[in-house]
């Protein structure tokens, strides 16, 4: 016969034992710190992925910490490295790749991590466009591909209808974009016919890739730090001139740097916008009349410059392994196991579905195709198809330019001056190249071994 008291006692005892063994398990688990730079809601989804890993085994524990946006995370990681306590893993935006890659001694390349820990990480599992972006010239994986996106076109079907355009036919070429914009303007269907976010990523980095023209020499910097910008080519100048003309005749509105331009599409003001595929969720949630009113298309191209546009390139971020003076082998092992976990096809495809990022593994993409997700959700296949179309050339592998964030700012500054009529398209393009090259030379000098 159990008295109430003894029941209480035994429950307490069981609780204590459980707590004790829990604490022991906790203590025995190898702890890994993971700094990430994704705000909500993406950050929360990322934490779920991490929680899934922690629950899937009992040897390792990854502790995710939000460190502000990408640039803040980068600065914090560098400061921490200098102070000798870098996190094990840091999520770094794609334009920081060159900086990280040059930081030999501060980072451990993923291929070396795989060799050292014996945890197989097969580069062939990843989409070529993704793999190439994060691999050394010899093809060895330097960082762990993770959240990747590419830029695509969104358009407002209702506005198209109002302007007498076919709502099921997104403009494919820049000529069609201009024509549509012209019609939208004359029909007064929307105050801003065309807008863009990520001015450099869309109009320089991806623009160069799909038109098969170099952004910079040396395979866009992937083959060496002595690369020089090539964005004052006739095609680049002509494209900038087109944007300037459109700005002048009121069919395009420059909406600011980075993703500042995104607001005008969801507000219904802009009829067409070019921005990240990761914008999908927001567009579907906030645009008036969505989801029916939101259409998707490929990034437009100049059909007289290229017959079949090439693959676009990715944006987003990858995961870097950082070193610290007292880092143990077990800790690196934990990192490798975590990487293996996030690249499992089912994790990858779920991540893509939940967030709007593209699947990064071939198997993950295959799963999405099979699961009918692409068919049932129009437009979700465009990023992946656009990333994998054609045969990649040196111009469409990706880019690896030192101090790229600074170069992006320079390009945007010169665009702003051009849009204000302070300089011609040619002057702006030349200024971008001169100033950008200076930054590249500084980087080369500072990182010469």
């Amino acid at each position, binding site marked *: 016969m159990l008295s109430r008291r003894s029941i209480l006692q035994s429950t307490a005892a069981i609780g204590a034992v459980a707590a004790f063994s829990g604490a022991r398990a906790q203590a025995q688990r190898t702890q890994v710190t993971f700094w990430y730079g994704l705000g909500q809601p993406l950050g929360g989804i990322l934490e779920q992925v991490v929680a899934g890993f922690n629950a899937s085994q009992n040897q390792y524990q990854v502790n995710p910490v939000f460190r502000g946006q990408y640039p803040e995370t980068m600065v914090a990681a*560098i400061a921490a490295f200098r102070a000798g306590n870098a996190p094990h893993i840091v999520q770094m935006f794609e334009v920081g790749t060159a900086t990280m890659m040059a930081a*030999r001694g501060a980072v451990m390349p993923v291929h070396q991590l795989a060799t050292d820990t014996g945890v197989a990480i097969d580069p062939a599992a990843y989409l070529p466009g993704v793999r190439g972006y994060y691999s050394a010239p010899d093809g060895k994986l330097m960082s762990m591909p993770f959240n990747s996106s590419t830029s695509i076109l969104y358009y407002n079907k209702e506005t198209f209808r109002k302007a007498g355009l076919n709502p099921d036919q997104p403009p494919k070429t820049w000529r069609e974009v201009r024509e549509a914009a012209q019609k939208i303007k004359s029909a007064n269907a929307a105050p801003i016919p065309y807008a863009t976010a990520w001015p450099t990523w869309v109009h320089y980095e991806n623009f160069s890739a799909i038109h098969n023209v170099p952004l910079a020499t040396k395979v866009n910097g992937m083959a060496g730090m002595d690369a020089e910008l090539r964005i004052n080519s006739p095609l680049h100048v002509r494209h900038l001139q087109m944007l300037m003309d459109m700005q002048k005749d009121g069919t395009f509105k*420059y909406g*600011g*740097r980075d993703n500042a331009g995104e607001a005008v599409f969801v507000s219904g003001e802009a009829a067409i916008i070019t921005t990240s595929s990761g914008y999908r969720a927001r567009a579907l949630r906030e645009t008036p009349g969505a989801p029916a009113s939101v259409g998707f298309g490929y990034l437009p191209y100049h059909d007289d410059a290229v017959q079949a546009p090439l693959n676009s390139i990715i944006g987003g971020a990858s995961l870097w392994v950082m070193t610290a003076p007292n880092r143990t082998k077990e800790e690196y092992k934990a990192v490798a196991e975590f990487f293996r976990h996030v690249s499992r096809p089912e994790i990858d495809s779920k991540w893509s579905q939940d967030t709007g990022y593209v699947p990064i593994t071939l198997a993950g993409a295959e799963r999405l195709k099979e699961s009918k997700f692409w068919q049932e959700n129009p437009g979700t296949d465009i990023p992946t198809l656009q990333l994998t179309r054609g045969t990649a050339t040196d111009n469409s592998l990706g880019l690896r330019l030192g101090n790229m964030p600074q170069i992006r700012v320079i390009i945007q*500054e010169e665009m702003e001056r051009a849009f*204000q009529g302070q300089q011609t398209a040619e002057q702006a393009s030349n200024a971008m190249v001169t100033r950008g090259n200076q930054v590249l030379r*500084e980087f080369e000098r*500072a*990182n010469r071994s």
Partner: protein
Amino acid sequence: MRKRVIFNDKALPYLLLLPQVAITLIFFFWPAAQAVYFSTQIQDAFGLRSQFVWFENFGAILSDPNYLSSIRVTVVFSVSVTVLAIAPALLLSVMADKQIRGATTYKTLLIWPYAVAPAIAAVLWLFIFHPSVGLLGRFLVAIGVPWDYALNDAQALLLVVLASAWKQISYNFLFFLAGLQSIPRSVLEAAAIDGASQTRRFWTIVFPLLSPTTFFLLVVNLVYAFFDTFGTIHALTRGGPGTSTTTLIYRVYVDGRDNLNLGTSSAQSVVLMLFVIALTMIQFRYIERRVHY
């Protein structure tokens, strides 16, 4: 000035000085020395490799047209802020100094903006001048002014100047008022009896008597415009469009933090330190004490 009667204790004075001196050494002198050291180095972001390059970083910034343009921006910005913050303050203080009813209430209502942070002042003005949200911004657009501070150099500069000056008027007001109140009434009344007009009295008697205050405020406002308006610019324009609102301090921040270029950022810091030292010297020649916390 020496005290005749003092304590003689061997260790105690050092102990009392210790916290202040420790913080001064660690967070003032060490970084200042670091700035000088880094300014002669080219270093990668992680500090893995660095090389000594003498004064190359200084050469680089001084030959960079964008650095020279940020000097220009800083001068235009600072002078505008100073004028715009001092002139209305002088007017208001002269008015508030008159023996009118409710003078104390006016005073209270005029000093509080001092407490508003520069960055918050920026947000307040943004809310008024935003082209599609703000009351005046929409008004300007409606009457056909192409108002878009995100893509117009002059408008962007105007907006940061307004937001920066607005908050500083209170400060200047208080000092002018204190200055005015220290002018003996008898002097003014004598002039009034002489039949000098009010305006004439102001310019011939009051304003010269205020000149120490005015000079002091000129320096303080310049220093404010130089150093304390980072928040305003960061919140409003982030230095753009182009580099039209990038002041020297903003550039130090961008080069050091965003561009991870310790060498040129430090060289800029050294230049600014020299500037502040020069400014302090000048100020000391005219006024005994100084201004910054």
